[in-house]
């Protein structure tokens, strides 16, 4: 890898009661690199995502951002450190508008006394949300429409646009092409490629293996909470990737 390691977890573990969700997983992500994270249901992908995004604290192991050990007590700390996460199916508040979603948690206020009282700069945020999403390369309807009125593809576009436009170091995308048609999924993959060119480290979690093989530089395979293979994408074929995911005792549901 030509670039420096931007985000790293070493030997992280997480148990839910008696269930071992993550068992000593280690992962390195370089700047400008797209790493695919794959595994069967229950392999620990979502848990690893939650550890990386600060939603869950690991029971053991280390998290390093640009070589410095960090501890996330909540997602806000990870966000403020430049790590953006797009969660599977639940990244947006459907009753809020596009711009309200894009700026959620980072609102801009009007100038003067009303801003101090918490009044929001609605027009400014709408204009900026529009510009940000366009810069990411995402077409979307008017930014003052509620997200609930958008189609599944449009929602996903907004969610990804939000994550890409705010991410400064790391972008974690959990199943971003789920429920999307071929054309919209293609657009999402283009957005990922552009994020990579911007120098972001991208973690791409997906069940859709052709997408993983197309867009990633490296693929990490999880099985039963452990990382069983971590190799450049060129070393996998569709068949060997499936074989690694299912393993000897894996099931394909």
């Amino acid at each position, binding site marked *: 890898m030509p670039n420096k390691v931007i985000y790293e977890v070493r030997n992280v573990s997480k148990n839910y009661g008696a269930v071992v969700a993550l068992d000593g997983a280690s992962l390195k992500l370089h700047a400008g690199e797209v790493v695919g994270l794959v595994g069967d249901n229950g392999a620990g992908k979502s848990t690893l995502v939650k550890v990386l*995004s600060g*939603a869950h604290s690991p029971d053991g192991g280390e998290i390093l951002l640009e070589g410095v050990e960090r501890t996330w007590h*909540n*997602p*806000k700390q990870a*966000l*403020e450190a430049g790590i953006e*996460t797009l*969660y599977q199916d*639940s*990244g*947006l*508040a*459907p*009753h*809020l508008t596009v711009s*309200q*979603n894009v700026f*959620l*948690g*980072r*609102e801009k*206020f009007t100038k003067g006394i009303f801003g101090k*009282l*918490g*009044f*929001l700069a*609605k027009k400014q945020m709408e204009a900026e949300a529009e510009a940000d999403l366009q810069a990411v*390369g*995402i*077409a*979307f*309807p008017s930014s003052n429409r509620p997200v609930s*009125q*958008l*189609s599944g*593809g*449009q929602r996903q*576009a907004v969610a990804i646009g939000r994550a890409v436009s705010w991410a400064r170091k790391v972008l974690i995308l959990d199943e971003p092409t789920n429920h999307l*048609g071929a*054309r*919209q999924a293609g*657009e999402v993959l*283009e957005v990922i490629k552009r994020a990579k060119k911007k120098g972001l480290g991208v973690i791409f979690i997906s069940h859709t293996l052709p997408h993983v093989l197309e867009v990633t530089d490296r693929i990490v395979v999880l099985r039963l909470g452990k990382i069983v293979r971590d190799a450049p994408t060129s070393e996998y074929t569709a068949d060997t990737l499936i074989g690694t995911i299912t393993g000897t005792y894996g099931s394909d549901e």
Partner: protein
Amino acid sequence: MGNSIQDSQAPSLLDKVKTSFRNQSVLLVATLVILGVVFQIASEGIFLTTGTLATVLNDWGSYILLAVAQTFVVITGGIDLSVGSTVSLSSVVAGWVLVQGLHLDSSISGDAAIPYVLLAVLVALLVGLTVGALNAFLINILKIVPFIATLATMGAMSGMAIIISGGMPLQGPNDFNLGIPYTVFGVQLPISTTVLTVLIITVIAGLYLHKTRFGLYTYALGSNPFATRAAGISPARHITKVYMLSGGLAGLAGAYAYIRLGAGSPSNGAGMELYAIAATVIGGVSLMGGVGRIIGIALGTLVLFTVQSGLLMVKVVQVSPSLKQVIVAILIAAAVAVQTLQKNGRK
């Protein structure tokens, strides 16, 4: 990028008509007009007068505060059943401080009573904020769902109100002029000082709900708590603020009740939570969270008052006051049914 994502275009005229029928405010205004006409006829012409409006607003001012408070709570996806007993408790504690604490009685009235009335308002507000904080503690720390948490405080606070008051109204200093409608150049307005205060609070609350970050987070929490937390917002902190706002407004409603009656009574808030929830639901707030506008609440509250007060003025048949609760219950059921129909129509 392709325009596949841009598949929805500007709404057609037909869509606009459909949308306005689904719009809660349009429905509510239509309902109000119909109710006004019906009651005007049934009351033989005494319903639509300034005097009636003044009486209605004065009687129902504290309910407006509770409806506003409930709006914020319900939009987060919660519910606050404790508001009625908070009204009782806060009015009783305010009365207790003046009567038992300061040994004052109702002989102090008019302007001389104003400092004591302000003290009563402050005490009632503090009691309300405390109950709100207690609700937030039960919900955030003990992880009890809002319905049960506030049901528990509802029972506890109404018991406390009876214990502190000894079951009797505590009559203290009061300036009844605060509740008397203003007369300007010989014309009676439907507005008194207390009603005006309530209306100002409602407008400010509306601005906060729709224009500020506080309101935005209220909607966000009710819409998708997971996304809200993922956006770096602390749900617990916002829940605390919202239930303290609800408690604080219930405390002010308790002060309103004290000023209206000149006494803190353990029955001041009895059953008020039902009306507060009814007003919000009729006003278009979804009990599922994330939906509702202050204009809808204002109209919903008006519909509720119109029905309640109008029934008392009907001359052709005598309507029993006990029937009012039944009618409120029917209105809640009807409002929720309309919401469901609107939602299904949208799909």
